[in-house]
């Protein structure tokens, strides 16, 4: 294919150079992930133990574990999911299965893009203004979870819509042609063939929600509350805010403690991500058409 004219040699050499340049740029982007993980493990690994995970902080948060923060994060994530997943799936179903191509649909799409792009601190202000004050939830798990739910709603919508649209249109038309309603088609063919894709997105949402800090700072997460929440109207500690607090607000923290917190947080988040990625890869292998 190649003839060794000078021009082609030059092109080939440049091709090689460009390739290496772009590879380097990519590597410089992704290497920090590995570096960061390495440093966190090296510096925080020594803090990890069962006690660290399952006891409460002591001595003004300079010792002890992070149980209340861990439990609090679970509360926040679960309630946020209970709110956002049904709404998100409904919205995605609407956009993918029902919406006509009109200005309203375009407006909804624009709103979703915007919802995803609004800074997290603005979501926090919204949470304060709407849930804490207007709806009277006070600073509570409820208010914080709702704020998180609104913030992560676009993640659910977009990933669900993608999963739905991966089901070929011809399947829908075949059902419609037999007289199935849109809902019957969704229930019998579309959802069963996209549910794993939808779950992948939900897992991704869990990982996002667990790591958020700004939206919960003023809506329901507390700096220090060494007991477990009992109802959704309680405040709670949370992993992400706990990391911020031990890293910036508490004097005389032993060096490995904040690294340990960071390690647990990032471990949680990346584990969720890994599950979602593995799930997706498995899905791609398992072809149904």
């Amino acid at each position, binding site marked *: 294919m190649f003839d060794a004219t000078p021009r082609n040699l030059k*092109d*080939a050499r*440049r*091709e090689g150079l460009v*390739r290496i340049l*772009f590879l380097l*740029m*990519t590597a*410089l*982007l*992704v290497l920090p*992930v*590995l570096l960061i993980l390495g440093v966190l493990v090296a510096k925080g690994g020594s803090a990890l133990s069962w006690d660290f995970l399952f006891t409460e902080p002591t001595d003004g948060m300079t010792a002890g574990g992070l149980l209340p923060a861990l439990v609090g994060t679970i509360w926040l994530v679960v309630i946020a999911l209970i709110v956002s997943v049904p*709404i998100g*799936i409904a*919205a995605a*179903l*609407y956009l993918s*299965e*029902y919406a006509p191509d009109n200005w309203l649909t375009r*407006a*909804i*799409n*624009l*709103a979703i*893009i*915007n*919802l995803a*792009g*609004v*800074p*997290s*601190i*603005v979501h*926090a202000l*919204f949470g*304060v*203004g709407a849930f804490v004050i*207007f709806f009277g939830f006070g600073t509570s798990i409820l208010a914080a979870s709702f704020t998180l739910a*609104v913030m992560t709603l676009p993640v659910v*919508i977009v990933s669900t819509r993608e999963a739905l649209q991966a089901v070929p249109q011809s399947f829908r038309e075949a059902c419609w042609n037999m007289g199935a*309603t*849109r*809902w019957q088609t969704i229930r019998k063919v579309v959802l069963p063939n996209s549910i794993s894709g939808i779950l992948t997105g939900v897992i991704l949402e869990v990982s996002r929600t*667990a*790591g*958020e*800090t700004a939206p919960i*700072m*003023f809506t329901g997460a507390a700096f220090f509350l060494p007991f477990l929440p009992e109802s959704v109207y309680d405040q709670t500690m949370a992993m*992400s*805010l706990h*990391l*911020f607090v031990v*890293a910036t607000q508490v004097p005389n923290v032993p060096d490995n403690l904040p690294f340990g917190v*960071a390690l647990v*947080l*990032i471990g949680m*988040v990346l584990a969720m*991500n890994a599950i979602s990625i593995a799930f997706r890869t498995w899905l791609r292998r398992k072809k149904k058409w």
Partner: protein
Amino acid sequence: MTDRKADPAVDRRDVAWWSDKAVSVLVFLGGISAILFIIGIFVFITREGFGFGEHFKAGEIFGSTRWAPTSDSNPTYGILALVAGTASVTGLAMLIAVPFSLGAAIYIAEFAKGRTREVLKVLVEMLAAIPSVVWGFIGLTIMNPLIIQTFDVPIGLCVLNSGLILGLMAAPIMTTIAEDALKAVPDSYREAAEALGATRWQVTRRVVLPAARQGLLAAVLLGVGRGFGETMAVLMASGHSINLPTSPFDSVRALTATIAAELGETAVGSPHYQALFMLGILLFAVTFLINLAADLIVRGIRKG
């Protein structure tokens, strides 16, 4: 079976028909909710910040670098320094993130194959998954001493630190969207150019990049939006002191970080509290415009 044929149910709206109708109404509400939430964000933030009107002096707000809402004698709400803080950090972040993200997107979309490609994509996703408070923590504990040592400066929490961090944070979203834009260029374009004997890079530069131009622009815009709105990482890594930066080693304070740091200390309804909500409106408006622009550009692609 024959009775079904005899009675074609022409006009009978059966259970199936009504359930479909009910579901369509339900999911429509879900769809509309996105719009309601956007409006809700605007309304509720405005509602809290509205009372600031009486303290609103445009000249002071947009003309002064003095942000001193807690001053007893002379509370001042100049946001110039905060804007400069946000702009310098976001600007530096983009300086880093734009070339690297586009480079990575080109590599992943055009050069990498099979396994390598999958691994790189997963790594980019992991980069995107790291929570912002962890990034801030890294800026605080790893980058800070590193900058102090390397550049021999007294403090490492500065524009450089938070710009680097923010660059890494904005990179994955830009890479992903840019890669999508490149992938959206039909393979037939590439094949046509390759048939003429062009190398991969020539194909990319002459054919793929021009065709994906708008998508790449949208990717950059969304990256800017991301960097601009980032809160925790900037709060922790920028030094958080009010400054008009003159060098990358100056500490600065960003708009977002100001809200995060001060909201907890204000009394509900006080002018300071209201001023923070006004900052929120400003942030909301700017990101809205950025997203709108990106959306219009992407829509332009689909039409063109």
